[in-house]
Structures are given as structure tokens and as C-alpha cells.
């Protein structure tokens, strides 16, 4: 057994135990499989989509609004584009948005929360009052209003979601930092002359990772829904990009007769978001043993 393994035996055992608990939750495992499958589909989309050019936006007006058939498994939309190819290409935006936006929210929210909670005092007061203002308003509506003024685009939609979401993480981490700063090992580090920012980076933030990761997994689904909602109103992804929210919006005018244009895109959103939420539930059981399910 290598030296590294010996020194980290207890952490390895704990990790192995956690993985076993997670995999006992069948729904969480199914969720994880769906996420992996979606990522794979998004990557190899150009090779598996039956009509890659239409997935990218080319129209084919001779085959408009065709019902699902052997030729077009999920039918075609109002531009004659193959809906299956559009659904496959559409997996990219929600995945990219969810990871980039969630990462940005955490990178902004978590350090601010750690700093405010650790130092306390007037700085903490100011930060928390700013958070109060943001948290006292429905986040998605704030994002919608932001984009309305910034101008519709997928980039602005992402910026708007980040701006309206970070305070949730600031408040979460700040609460933990307040209790962590009283811990003996933090006091000890301080007495030994370790710098404040070193303490925050090495002791405060790592110890609040558990709840942050659980919150992130649960929020990824919400972020996907928020981005799809912005695209549905016309403030997010712009045509001819394939995006599930935008596809539902494009299919809305035809929904009663050519239901397949919007129906499958929405189903894809439901399945992916459900998968993230199931994984989040599973992770919470592992990382937050007090929670009851």
C-alpha cells in the first residue's frame, strides 16, 4: 500500500462509505445515469443527430410540420427542421448554462459569505442588508427584469441569473462562517499568527463545502428552469439556436395540432431537471445526515 493511501486511510474509508450510501438510493443513481447520458448526447450530438444541419438551424421548408414518423421520429417544426435533431442539439445550452452559471454564483457568493461571516462587524452588517434586499424579491423575476434592460441574449440571461442568485450562497456560507470562526482550530491558527485570508481559504470555506455542494446540485435544476423560462419569453437563447425553452416557445402557436414541436423539448427539460434534483436528494442524505427523507 502506498504511503499516500496509508496517510489518507480514514478519508478514503469515509468516501467509500459515502459512495455506498449514495448508490443505495436507486432514484439518485438513475438521476446520475440520466445526467451522464445527457452530457454524452450533447457532446456526440453532431454524429448521432439524424439531421445535424437542421440541429444547427438550417430550415427545410418542404417538410414543414410533419407528424412523428420513421423518417422524423419526433416530427418536424414550422421550419421543417427535424425535432429529434433539435432536441439533441438543444441539450448543450442547458448543460453549459447550468454549470457555468452555478459555478459563477458559487464563486461570487461563497467568498463574500465567508469574509462577511469571519470578520463580522460593520462589513457583515452591510453585506447581509444587501443580501436581504436581493432575497426579498423573487430571483427569477429579478433576472427577467435585468435582461429586459440589458437586452435579450443568452449571455445577458446568464449574467442576470448570476446577479440575482449569489446572495443565497452568501447567506448560507456566512451562517456557517460565523459558527466556524469560534472553533478551537481556527482560534489556534489565529494565535499562531496565520493570516485572516489564509484561515478563510483553508479552514472556513472548505468546512462549509458540504451544504454548498448539496445546495448547488439542487439549484442546477432551478437554474436550467430559469434559463429555459427566459428563452421561452424571448429573453434568452435567440433563433435559430436549438434550445429547449425556445423550442417550446416556437411550438406554442402550433401546440394544439402540431403538439410534438414543443412537447418533446419540455419533456427533455423535465427529465434533466428531475435527474439533477434526484441526485441532489441523494447527495444531501450523504453530506447532511441530519436531514430526514
Amino acid at each position, binding site marked *: 500500500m502506498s504511503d499516500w493511501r496509508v496517510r489518507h486511510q480514514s478519508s478514503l474509508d469515509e468516501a467509500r462509505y459515502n459512495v455506498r450510501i449514495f448508490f443505495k438510493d436507486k432514484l439518485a443513481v438513475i438521476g446520475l445515469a440520466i445526467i451522464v447520458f445527457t452530457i454524452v448526447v450533447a457532446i456526440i450530438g453532431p454524429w448521432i443527430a439524424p439531421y445535424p444541419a437542421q440541429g444547427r438551424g438550417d430550415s427545410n421548408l418542404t417538410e414543414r410540420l410533419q407528424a412523428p414518423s420513421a423518417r422524423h421520429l419526433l416530427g418536424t417544426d414550422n421550419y421543417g427542421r427535424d425535432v429529434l435533431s433539435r432536441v439533441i442539439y438543444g441539450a448543450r445550452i442547458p448543460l453549459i448554462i447550468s454549470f457555468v452559471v452555478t459555478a459563477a454564483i458559487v464563486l461570487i457568493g461563497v467568498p463574500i459569505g465567508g469574509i462577511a461571516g469571519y470578520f463580522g462587524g460593520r462589513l457583515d452588517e452591510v453585506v447581509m*442588508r444587501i443580501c436581504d*434586499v436581493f432575497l426579498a424579491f*423573487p430571483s427569477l423575476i429579478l433576472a427577467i*427584469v435585468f435582461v429586459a*434592460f440589458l437586452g435579450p441574449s443568452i449571455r445577458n440571461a446568464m449574467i442576470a441569473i448570476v446577479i440575482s442568485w449569489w446572495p443565497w450562497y452568501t447567506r448560507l456560507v456566512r451562517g456557517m462562517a460565523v459558527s466556524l470562526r469560534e472553533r478551537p482550530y481556527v482560534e489556534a491558527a489565529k494565535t499562531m499568527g496565520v493570516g485572516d485570508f489564509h484561515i478563510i481559504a483553508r479552514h472556513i470555506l472548505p468546512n462549509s463545502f458540504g451544504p454548498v455542494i448539496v445546495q448547488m446540485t439542487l439549484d442546477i435544476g432551478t437554474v436550467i428552469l430559469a434559463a429555459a423560462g427566459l428563452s421561452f419569453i*424571448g429573453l434568452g437563447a435567440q433563433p435559430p439556436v436549438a434550445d429547449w425553452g425556445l423550442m417550446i416557445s416556437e411550438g406554442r402557436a402550433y401546440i*394544439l395540432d402540431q403538439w410534438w414541436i414543443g412537447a418533446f423539448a*419540455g419533456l427533455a427539460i423535465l427529465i434533466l431537471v*428531475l435527474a439533477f434534483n434526484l441526485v441532489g436528494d441523494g447527495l444531501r442524505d450523504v453530506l447532511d445526515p441530519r436531514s430526514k427523507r
Partner: protein
Amino acid sequence: MTVRAYVVRRLALAVFVLLGIASITFVMARVVPSNVAQTYVGSNARPAQIAQATKILGLDKPLYQQYGIYMKGLVTGDWGNSLRTKRPVLSDILHFFPATLELVIAALILATIFGIILGVTTAHMRGSWLDHVMRLFSTGGVSIASFWLALMLQILFFRMLHLLPVAGETSITVAQAHPITSITGMPVVDALITGNWVAFWDAGRHFILPVITLAAYPMGVIMRMTRSSMLEAMELDYIRMARAMGVPPRVLLYKAALKNALGPVFTVVGLTFANALTGTFFVELIFAWPGLGYYATTSILGADYPAIVGVTVMIAFVYVIANLVVDLAQAVVDPRIALR
């Protein structure tokens, strides 16, 4: 902290938060756009209109004076005129608001009743196949895009089953033959209190699909919260004691445990209010429901900036008041909250 001090503190916080939201909106509306006057009067306005907007908004003055004018307008009720309806934004908003309130309240009541019943049932049947199915169901409720659910319900209940109308607040024929006298501005409630049964039946049928759509998310959240909170309550000493003494499960669940589990549940009901409000932006658009959400989305699509600012401030106001009421009600029911 005494209850009185708590109430004072919560009120002060509410005022502060409202000022904060109004300030954020000011930054978005006045600092972010490159040409504010142009933004406010629309892209094809005449130079005279732009000059007038510049004067009314005080755009030729320094930013802090503009802020003063803006805040004074908000407080005195002068919220500017809508570019599309040409009417004062505030009166537009007050006109559209009751229909939204009716939807949101009905959705939350529906979600609370079914969420609690299903949550208690699944807590009771923990680990059974029904529990797993219901977990998928409640997680599905928080994973579904409301605008997609709305469209699917239209297909099912209008196109396939021919049971319910596709959209709108009332049918035109019924509205002409049996017009609803507007008292509260909420069609279903107005029809009910004026005893206008034909219109009540008609408005009620229009009401069902939007309410179900809006209730999906809150119901999922409330159901999950009730379940986990019940499981915790079932392990309290006196409940175990009661069970050991042979108190029947039904009494145990609904009388003893539920009472203890309800605190956290009502906190989430308050939180889902934000979600229901957000949902109206999508649901009212799809069901052509003439409420605040419909007004908001059409204002955004029509680049009606004075209206967008107005709606934002109005929603902040409603949401802050709702939170205040929930918090104060909880403090009255459970004084420990105020003392924390």
C-alpha cells in the same frame, strides 16, 4: 427581544428592503441603458418626445437628483405612463393585480391542502412503493417547466377531452349575456358574491388550468417539507410515548405529530409565494389571463419600460408585505420566534 421590538424591527427591515429594490430598479432603468430617454419613449419616438422625456425624468440633472425625482414619484404614486396603454402605470397595475392575486391565492390553497395530505400519507407509508412513487411525483412538481405544463394541460383538457376552455378569463358569450359586476376585480369571487351563477360556472372553468399549473411547484415543495417534518415529529419523545400507550395511528398522525410538523411547513408556504408570483409571468401569458404577470411579460416584450419598472416595484411591495404577514403571524402563534 420582546414581540413588540420584533414587530418594529421587521417593519423597519421591510421599509429598507423596499427602498433597496426601488434603488436596484433605478440602477437598471437609468444607469444600465445607454440612451435612457430613447429607451423610455420607444425607438421610433419623435425628437420632441425625447426632449419631453428628458425633462420629465430629469435626465439633464445629476444622477443623485434624478434618483430623488424617481423616488418621489414612486412614493407619491406618480409612476409615469405606459407606452402601450398610454394610461398611468399605477392604475394599470391596480387594474390587473386582483386577477393575479386570485390565481396565486387559489393555487397556494390548493397546493397547501394536497401537499399536507400527501406529505402526511407518505410519511406514514415511509419506504413503501407508494412512498417512492410519490417522491418522484413531488420532485417532478419542482422539476417541471410551468409553461410546458400549461401547454400540456391545454392539449389534454381542451384538445383531447374537450372538458375545459383553452384560455381567457371568461367566455365572450357568457360575458355579454351575464356580465360580472366588478367588486374585487377577481372574476370568480365577484361572480360568486353577486350570485351570478352562470358567470361563476364559466369563470370557474377558465380558472382551473391556470391554478393547477401554478400549484404544481408549491405542492411539490410543501409535500416534501411535510413528509420530512412529519418523520422528525414522529420521533419526538411524547409521540413515541403516545404510540406505546396505544393511541391509534390516525389520531397520532393528524392530531399530535402534524401540529408539531406544521411550523416548517408554513414557512415553506411563505417561500413558495415567490414561486407562484414568478409562475404568473408564464402561466398568465399562456392562458391569456389578464393579470399582473400578463401585463409584465407583454410590457417586457413591448419594451414598455415605465411599466416594467412599475411592475417590479409592485411585486416587491406585494412580496415584502406577504413575508411580513407570514413572519408576524408566526411570531403571534409561536412567540419563541420573536425571542430568537
